[in-house]
């Protein structure tokens, strides 16, 4: 008996986590998936109506806006954060004297919650008293900056705040990558007469491929889950102009009592994450095998 216990201890230790995982992750996903096939509104009820909720979802202009916003946000956020992070990492990798201090400054926003970031930027971008007034005071009379309250521009304020928060992290990823580059390689390239720019473009950047890859996956993940930033910075407004899918899901599930519709939007978010995650994990596994 004791022997049996001793032999199976690892399994016993892992059992609670496994049970909770099966229920609270996979079980719940199935539950939400099933719910998205019903006409539940206020309370879950199990009249199945096929893909009706998904049809309603795709016909909903608010969902359209949220998805469009996600793409705008995703692309700008990822591209700007990557470029900025990479450049800062390269500059910081030039034997800078106060590197530690600068690195600390670049990265501290990552320790702050999106709610705080949103609150801060909401004040900075305040039309009237924020950056607009600062520029006017500094002599740029007539300078206007009202993105926060403009239908078409509100989503870009989310990009600004998110880049501010996450680009330091991308910098740290790239810096770690750059530190891992074999010095002999750079020396050899220099002996061959490569200029610094050539060196980075032809030798070092290709080596950073895995870093680009993981940075993109992480940033995508942050972007898809960005719910708090929108909530704090624009509240999804003006109107619902800066909603992201996560905010749509929250509003319809918890404020509008349309949980079937909310569930279908959550499932679409899950599929979106999977579409990015599966190729990533697949290539990771392949790399490991070879």
């Amino acid at each position, binding site marked *: 008996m004791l022997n049996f216990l001793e032999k199976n*201890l*690892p*399994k016993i*230790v*892992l059992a609670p*986590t496994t049970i*909770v*995982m099966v229920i*609270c*992750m996979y079980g*719940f*996903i199935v*539950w*939400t998936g099933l719910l998205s096939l019903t006409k539940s509104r206020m309370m*879950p009820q199990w009249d199945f109506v096929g893909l009706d909720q998904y049809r309603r979802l795709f016909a909903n202009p608010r969902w359209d806006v949220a998805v469009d916003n996600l793409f705008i946000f995703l692309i700008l956020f990822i591209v700007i954060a990557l470029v900025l992070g990479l*450049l800062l990492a390269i500059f*910081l990798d*030039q034997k*800078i004297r106060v590197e530690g201090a*600068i690195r*600390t*400054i*670049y*990265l*501290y*926003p*990552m*320790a*702050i*919650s*999106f*709610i*705080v*970031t949103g*609150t801060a*930027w909401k*004040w*900075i971008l305040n039309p009237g*008293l924020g950056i607009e*007034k*600062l520029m006017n*005071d*500094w002599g740029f009379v007539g300078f206007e900056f009202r993105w926060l309250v403009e239908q078409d521009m509100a989503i870009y304020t989310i990009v600004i705040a998110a880049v501010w928060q996450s680009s330091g992290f991308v910098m*740290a990823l790239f810096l770690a990558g750059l530190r891992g580059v074999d010095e002999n390689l750079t020396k050899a390239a220099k002996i061959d007469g490569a200029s610094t720019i050539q060196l980075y473009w032809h030798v070092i950047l290709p080596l950073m491929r895995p870093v680009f890859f993981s*940075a993109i996956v992480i940033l995508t993940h942050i972007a898809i889950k960005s*719910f*708090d930033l929108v909530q704090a910075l624009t*509240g999804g407004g003006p109107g619902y102009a800066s909603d992201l899918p*996560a905010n749509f*899901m929250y509003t319809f*599930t918890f404020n509008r009592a349309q949980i079937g519709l*909310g569930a279908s*939007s*959550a*499932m679409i*978010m*899950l599929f*979106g*994450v999977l579409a990015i995650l599966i190729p990533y*994990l697949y290539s990771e596994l392949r790399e490991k095998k070879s």
Partner: protein
Amino acid sequence: MSSLKLTKYNIGRTFIYSILIFFAFIYLAPLYVMFTTSLKDIEEIRSGNLMALPIDPTFYAWKKAWSSACTGSDCRGLAPYFWNSVRIVFPAVIISTIVGAFNGYSLAKWKFKGSEFLFGALLFGCFIPFQVILLPMAKLLGMLGLANTVTGLVLVHVIYGVAFTTLFFRNYYVGIPTELVRAAKLDGAGFFAIFRHIFIPLSTPIFVVTIIWQFTQIWNDFLFGVVYSGSGTQPITVALNNLVNTSVGGKEYNVDMAAAIIAALPTLAVYVIAGKYFVRGLTAGAVKG
């Protein structure tokens, strides 16, 4: 010739330094603005601008944010919610870290048929958008009688934090030579003895990384907080958001900023004290299993 080269080098260096310092200012600016705004009174905010230093610094906004600002209809300031967050964070961090350590140890050094699959399945939990579990979890908390309670939030954070903590410990323990385990087994040591006498003493860094990661994640959480808390049990992020969006009387930007700094202070302090481990956690989260 060499002096020409030197100047060229110097121009390059100056350029690099100015870019780096410029961006340091950009990153610091919001913190500066928050802090200076929190020390101004509302008159000065209206007449001055973002970058202006406070002429007559006052702690009025800090006091109000802490003890009398309104979040919705409740005007007790952030203090009660700050303590809610503390009461959520501590148990959640401790429990999820301990569970993660045991899980990681088992998965790394006591492989059995299916353990790799189990790890993969768990890893998936680090990536799912939580929207997909929000509703059923609310149902479950209701059934357990934990809806709108601090205990319920602790439970949720533990459940969805364990995927990360397990990942951290597992990846760390994989690097500890299996020969050590084999030798100890020959000496008659069992599962727990090996963990206690060999692994725990080697684990300080990974414990620090995991605790910091979990602390930051849970303190900064908003989604679970806003969905699973009720009036009086909200964590500080939710209270801050309510405070900023409550407009009783005029908008007090100084109070908003003081409140935001209060909400950010614990994680900022951890970052300043243990930045190295914080970064390691971030990149460990990025590193695949």
